[in-house]
């Protein structure tokens, strides 16, 4: 039977987001013209090295950057077509509580050690819904069971330290579902986990997406994670998006040298599994990302790029469409730009 094509409903739209923060050396632009759009039910990933601005992006979307740190936001952020950059804190709390929830980086270490897990989940449910205490308990147990926890009652009664890392991460994800959000943003939810637990947690996000239709925005520095879960991906470098598009396009047809380098960092295991294939040297990206306070006028990746030409040091590439089956495949690289213009 042919299923009706579900028309995607836009949920989150970020347009030309610029975020500046205060530093002892002055104002620093940590995000430069970020564009993202997430439809209901999407699974998207943001991938990039530490310091590239992944957390800043989601903290800007949720307007969680503290007053002391924040210099300014510019651009546009819309949730269900409504601009949220200039709404008040009260309304913003409604968005954070009811529409978008965050599984923060290192959230599993932020569970309160002195309260039982169940109490902590119930508190969140009571805070974010109109349920009675009795209903909240039921919902908490239901959520834990949904997380694939066999002994939901035992976990409910436990203190955080009595649970393994994997179980704690499930508890934190259960909490993020307390308000039936349209979108869960998860900041490096599996970086600290064992590989088998990482896989279980990724499967869990897929299940939540499938069963509840919740959109997922997952932040990671590992393309293996992106490949396993996300339909689309944005690659960040030094506060900018350098490539974005469908995951399969970006992985199998990468256009930006940085994307290529990140993909190459995943060790190739062919030499182990295939006879006659030699072991290749482990690829590494040399050097470090640039200091955002001290940027040149050229491409931000230029000092590490093996394709760099003279022009790359003076001209900043723009994010542009490339010739690709994926109409939304965008790349920020002067060489790709030139190749594209010849192809036309």
């Amino acid at each position, binding site marked *: 039977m042919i299923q009706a094509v579900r028309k995607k409903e836009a949920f989150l739209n970020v347009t030309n987001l610029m975020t500046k923060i205060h530093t002892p050396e002055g104002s620093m632009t940590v995000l430069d013209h970020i564009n993202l759009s997430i439809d209901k039910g999407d699974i998207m990933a943001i991938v990039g*090295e*530490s*310091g590239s601005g992944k957390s800043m992006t989601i903290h800007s979307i949720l307007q969680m950057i503290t007053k002391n740190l924040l210099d300014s936001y510019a651009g546009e952020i819309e949730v269900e077509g409504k601009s949220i950059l200039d709404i008040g804190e009260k309304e913003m709390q409604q968005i954070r509580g009811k529409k978008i929830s965050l599984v923060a980086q290192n959230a599993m270490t932020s569970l309160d050690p002195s309260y039982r897990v169940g109490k902590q989940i119930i508190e969140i449910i009571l805070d974010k819904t109109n349920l009675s205490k009795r209903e909240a308990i039921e919902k908490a147990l239901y959520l834990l069971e949904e997380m694939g926890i066999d002994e939901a009652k035992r976990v409910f009664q436990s203190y955080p330290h009595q649970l*393994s*890392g994997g179980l704690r991460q499930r508890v934190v994800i259960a909490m993020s579902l307390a308000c039936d959000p349209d979108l869960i943003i998860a900041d490096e939810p599996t970086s*600290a986990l*064992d*590989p*088998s*637990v*990482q*896989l279980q947690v990724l499967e869990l996000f897929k299940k939540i997406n499938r069963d509840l239709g919740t959109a997922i925005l997952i932040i990671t*520095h*590992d*393309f*293996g*994670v992106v*490949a*396993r879960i996300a339909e689309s991906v944005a690659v960040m470098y030094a506060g900018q998006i350098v490539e974005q598009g469908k995951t399969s396009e970006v*992985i199998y047809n990468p256009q930006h040298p940085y994307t290529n*380098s*990140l*993909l190459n*960092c*995943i*060790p190739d*295991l062919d030499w*182990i*599994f295939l006879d006659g294939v030699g*072991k290749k*040297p*482990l*690829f*590494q*990206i*040399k050097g*470090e990302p640039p200091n955002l306070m001290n940027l040149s006028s050229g491409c931000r990746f230029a000092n590490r790029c093996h394709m760099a030409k003279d022009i790359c040091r003076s001209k900043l590439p723009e994010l542009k469409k490339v010739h690709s089956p994926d109409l939304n495949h965008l790349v920020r690289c002067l060489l790709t730009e030139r190749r594209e213009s010849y192809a036309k």
Partner: protein
Amino acid sequence: MQNESLLDVQGLTKVYGNKGSLFVPRKEMLAVNNVSFSIKKGETFGLIGESGSGKTTIGRMVLRLIEATAGDIQYEGKSILSMKKGEMDKLRSEMQIIFQDSGSAFNPRKTIGEQILHPLNKFHSNSDAGYQYNKVIEMLDVVGLRADFYHRYPHELSGGQRQRAGIARALIVKPKFLVLDEPVSALDVSVKAQIINLLIDLQKEFQLTYLFIAHNLDLVAYFCDKVAVLSKGELIETAPTIELFRKPKHEVTQKLLSSILTLDGDLGEYYRKQSAI
């Protein structure tokens, strides 16, 4: 020589917990149970297993940072568990450890240079200041940090740079054997590769032997000559890397390796086929 063993571990066992008393019930935890393996000179020996399986405990017992409950550890043919303090102290400079986050082992108020110097003072206290300074600069260079890192503080370094500084500090006393306890687990994928390549270069340059503990199994495959798998404190399987990854014998190993993520998905399918044969 490649074939000489540097470290022989026999029946190593660790029980954590109190001995109990009239009022406090005896509560014990068997963290490592009767583990035996040996590491050859110049080899990289991998230790993998889920968290809590006992990897760190083994790494620390081998260096006598914690005492073994039972078993024997021989380093170059000499039993180290029965060594007197003086003899053990001498050996300490030959055996060093690198942790997941060297940063947390650094004193936030001392410069990187001072901290790299610290073990040198501990083991070779009579060298003069000029020699010491040059030695630190040399070590910084060895791990790929510029000389001006001498005067920086830990918080001014990125995770990868701190890990390099940690390696410099371990190497300054010219060790032969290093326990690497999850040295890249907290780092970005791209920085992981930098540190592994550095460790490989250093191994060649200084004839080092490594015990590599990690949960990044694709890097273990790349880096190690031999791999041992721990499960609940017991060694369930030890094999040369290719053999272990191609045909894991134990179900637990299969499950562990199945979760390796590649760009084409996880390796579950491969191991399901393997076990069907």
